[in-house]
């Protein structure tokens, strides 16, 4: 731990041009891909609580950590609530992996605690509206200002085609045929909407679990590693999938709110809502998550990432298959 504290102190000291001491390290969360560590940084008699987001190795980043820091800074400059970034370090030798340092934000992000807090504070609709407002602000940013490292559809190809192609490729990699997932792809092909008139920066993983909330409302939108150029409706559909409701199924938006306050806030902030693309992206997202779970099982089986947690993902595919079939019940069909 002292190596980590020393590395952070030295790096911050160079950036701030003063002597920095680091103490009070506390691992606040550790995902499979990244670790978040809170710490106190003291410089010139002032102590600030900060957070370091650390990747174990540069190999696993979805987008360059520098691009992630840049897109967050850009979003914040346009009014999106996200923790201020003090800087990013791509050199893995400083503390053992690439990292960036941001302000520490207090509040809840663990889903079941978020749902409990929202129930007690009665602020679910307010938070859903704040999320929609933040997304509208992000989508209003001129995509030409986006960091060059952000993934984007190939020239002449739209976000709808790109997403369909990705799903088709993933289905081709399944270890055994899964008719229900193919049925989902078939629906997506048959019901594909027109490409969006505007492409924007999208976060693509805003949901319960990736936001920090408190009794006074939304405090921060986290985890920007999936940011890309795409269809803004993808961002609006994603928080409304069943897997982000954590069994609070009657509240469509992340188990915290009805859809209306969320949609109204997006429109009020200048966003354009398209119901057909909203529904389509909900189906796409559900299918893609099911394929993601199947891929985790494959990574366990072929040795790329061997852990019981990834193995267990294979037994979760049927949850997503169910959610998918519920979304695409044919006319006259029903689920008893």
């Amino acid at each position, binding site marked *: 731990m002292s190596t980590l504290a020393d590395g952070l102190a030295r790096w911050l000291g160079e950036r701030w041009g003063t002597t920095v001491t680091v103490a009070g390290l506390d691992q606040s969360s550790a995902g499979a891909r990244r670790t978040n560590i809170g710490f106190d940084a003291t410089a010139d008699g002032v102590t600030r609580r900060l957070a370091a987001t650390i990747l174990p190795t540069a190999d696993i980043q979805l987008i360059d950590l520098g691009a992630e820091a840049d897109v967050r800074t850009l979003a914040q400059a346009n009014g999106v609530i996200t923790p201020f970034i003090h800087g990013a370090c791509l050199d893995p030798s400083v503390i053992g992996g690439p990292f960036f340092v941001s302000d520490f934000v207090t509040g809840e992000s663990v889903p079941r605690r978020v749902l409990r807090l929202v129930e007690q504070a009665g602020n679910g609709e307010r938070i859903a509206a704040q999320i929609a407002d933040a997304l509208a602000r992000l989508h209003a940013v001129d995509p030409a200002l986006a960091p060059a490292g952000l993934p984007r559809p190939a020239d002449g190809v739209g976000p709808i085609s790109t997403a369909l192609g990705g799903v088709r490729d993933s289905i081709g990699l399944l270890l055994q045929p899964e008719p229900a997932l193919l049925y989902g792809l078939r629906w997506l092909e*048959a019901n594909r909407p027109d490409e969006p008139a505007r492409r924007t920066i999208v976060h693509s993983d805003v949901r319960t679990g990736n936001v920090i909330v408190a009794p006074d409302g939304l405090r921060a939108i986290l985890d920007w590693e999936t940011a890309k150029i795409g269809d803004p409706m993808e961002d609006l559909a994603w928080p409304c999938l*069943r897997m982000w409701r954590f069994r609070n199924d009657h509240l469509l938006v992340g188990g915290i709110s009805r859809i209306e306050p969320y949609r109204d806030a997006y429109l009020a902030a200048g966003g354009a809502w398209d119901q057909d693309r909203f529904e389509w992206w909900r189906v796409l997202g559900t299918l893609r998550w099911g394929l993601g779970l199947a891929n985790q099982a494959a990574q366990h089986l072929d040795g790329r990432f061997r852990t019981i947690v990834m193995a267990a993902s294979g037994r979760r595919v049927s*949850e997503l298959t169910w959610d998918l079939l519920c979304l695409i019940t044919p006319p006259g069909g029903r689920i008893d």
Partner: protein
Amino acid sequence: MQYRPTAAELLADIADLLDDEVLEAVGGPLQHKVRVAGNLARILEREVRLAPGADAAEAERLRALLGRDGTLAELRAALAIRLGDPTPFDADTERAVHAALVATTRADLAIAKPGHDDWSRG
């Protein structure tokens, strides 16, 4: 034939051991893995009991839907090929395909995540 306990009984015992004793004895990141392993043992306990019937029922549904015979693996592959052909189904067939997939998924959930099908509005 093995003497008792049955495979299902032993899997339940392993799940109890993981949930009630091992979980308390370990700390840190291993706790999550132990919890996952305990849940997997419970899934396998149900799978040992329920999968033979579920697989037979799925094969029967697919024989009726596809109008042909074969093993479950062959029938699933045949349905996958038909679904990969974009030619639309007529309305009755569309509903029958969807209903068959729903029934199969429901049987899978009875093993992997009982109760997940309590909600059917997506």
